[in-house]
């Protein structure tokens, strides 16, 4: 493997919230066309690391390299423009808006001329409906407000949204934590489909079976640092557990 394989390199990322040092110089890498898992105990800093990559948090120090070039991911918009989509742990849905409005939030389709542009509502409803149908079991009508959806339905909306933009990197922060069997199965299918399309997926999960099942590569975080990496083919659930707890050194 050469560094050319690496689509993303986050190097020595530090981030503190007031007195809490959430990241203490964490470095991870992701490879093209692979599913990279990120595991670690609660509070290890997984979500924080992922949020610096998706442009929500600005790291205190450290660099992020995308396709070999150092990039500045100051805003979620910037990350999206560079092809990084994220399913946040909190899903990032607006409850009072409808499913299709959430789907296209921030990248609405418009029609009209010049500066006089209005929303192309029909087209957006149509697209959202199709994309959601590919994923969810009980597809909610795209015109219903997210407030009325169950936890699983919301997750489905958020995942379908992130998967739908033909991006280079899709980050999923515990995407199946609240999902039932069928939905979990569908999400795993999508994740595989994304990989097969050449998308690099970063998956945070507490479910070892899932990680062993899906991922190609895994990074282990502990107390704000990425302490170890393993090829899935060369590790076992037990080894991962001992890496997480620190029972085994990296």
């Amino acid at each position: 493997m050469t560094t050319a394989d690496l689509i993303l390199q986050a190097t020595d990322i530090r981030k503190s919230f007031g007195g809490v040092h959430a990241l203490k110089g964490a470095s991870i890498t992701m490879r093209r066309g692979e599913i990279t898992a990120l595991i670690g105990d609660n509070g290890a800093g997984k979500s924080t690391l992922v949020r610096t990559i998706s442009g929500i948090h600005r790291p205190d120090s450290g660099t992020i390299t995308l396709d070999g070039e150092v990039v500045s991911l100051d805003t979620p918009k910037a990350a999206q423009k560079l092809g990084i989509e994220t399913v946040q742990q909190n899903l990032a849905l607006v409850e009072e808006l409808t499913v299709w409005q959430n789907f296209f939030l921030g990248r609405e389709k418009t029609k009209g001329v010049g500066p006089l542009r209005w929303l192309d509502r029909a087209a957006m409803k149509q697209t959202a409906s199709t994309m959601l149908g590919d994923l969810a079991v009980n597809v909610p009508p795209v015109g219903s407000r997210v407030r009325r959806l169950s936890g699983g339905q919301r997750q489905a909306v958020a995942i379908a949204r992130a998967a739908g933009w033909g991006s280079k990197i899709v980050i999923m922060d515990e995407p199946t934590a609240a999902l039932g069997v069928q939905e979990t199965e569908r999400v795993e299918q999508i994740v595989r489909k994304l990989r097969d399309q050449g998308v690099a997926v970063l998956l945070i999960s507490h479910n070892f079976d899932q990680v062993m099942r899906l991922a190609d590569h895994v990074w282990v975080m502990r107390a704000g640092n990425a302490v170890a990496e393993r090829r899935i083919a060369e590790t076992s659930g037990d080894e991962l557990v001992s890496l997480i707890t620190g029972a085994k050194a990296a």
Partner: protein
Amino acid sequence: MARPSAVRSALGEARRLSFWAENAAPIGLLVLVVVFAALSPTFLSPGNIKAMLVAAAILVILGVAQSFVITTGGIDLSISATMTVGAVGFGLAWQAGAGFIASALLAIIASTVIGVINGLLIASGKVTDFIATLGTLSLATGAALILSAGKPIQVTSIELLRITTGSVGVFGYPIIIAAVVGVLGWFVMFRTRFGLHVQAVGGSEESAVANGISATRVRIAVYVISAVLAGLAALLLVARVGAAEPTINTSYLLNSIAAVVLGGVSLTGGRAKIVGPILGALLLTALANGLTLLGVSQFYQPVAVGLVVVLAALLTRFQKK
């Protein structure tokens, strides 16, 4: 066998209650109109309708302005002070010999300055809306007094006179201007990206930001919109009273909020309405007009307004989520 029908009728009831709640403003307006029309023959005379509509114009514009702000979960307490600053701006420019257009522009610019301050404080300075606009309410009050040296500026402009007196049928120019503002407001809110972003930021700022929306820009924008509309309202105000006065007409502030609430908009933000607040503004105006027609003592008028606001709010509770 008794169960389902009982359940069904209970459901029907709920459906009916939520129907009333969703339509509190139009229904309330209708009830008021019927009651006042029955009690006073003049109420529905063309002259009185025209007078009511003209009287409602300023409040309609402020209601639309306030609705944009409240949809983001904010509130603009400085709205009537901003209007006063606009009025004083117009007066000063007029006094200095500027023409109508130039004076009108200056009025709107003066108001906009307050809006920009609000926006920057709230969006960039992360000051709570309530506090920031409470602060600018004081600032604008002082500014209006200082600029005008505390004295009203008499304005007799032909253009303003035309605005006051012109009409198409029972629709005076002021209410036509207000209607245009309403239609534009509706379009911007429900048919443009910006409007959707306003609702998104009000619904969940965190989620909106995570989707690449700049909450800062949206918040600044709604306060600027509010201020620009307050500036426009200032022109109607100067036209109406024939002078630019430096005192703040606080009842416009409270009534603009009441209109939005009567229109069924929740102060927590996220759910936009434009038609509702406009009807709310008409309702409040019709209420004051009807009570005056009936010769109800001044002392009872705040009680009537208070009751209407409370009843409407109680109804809103049954709105569908």
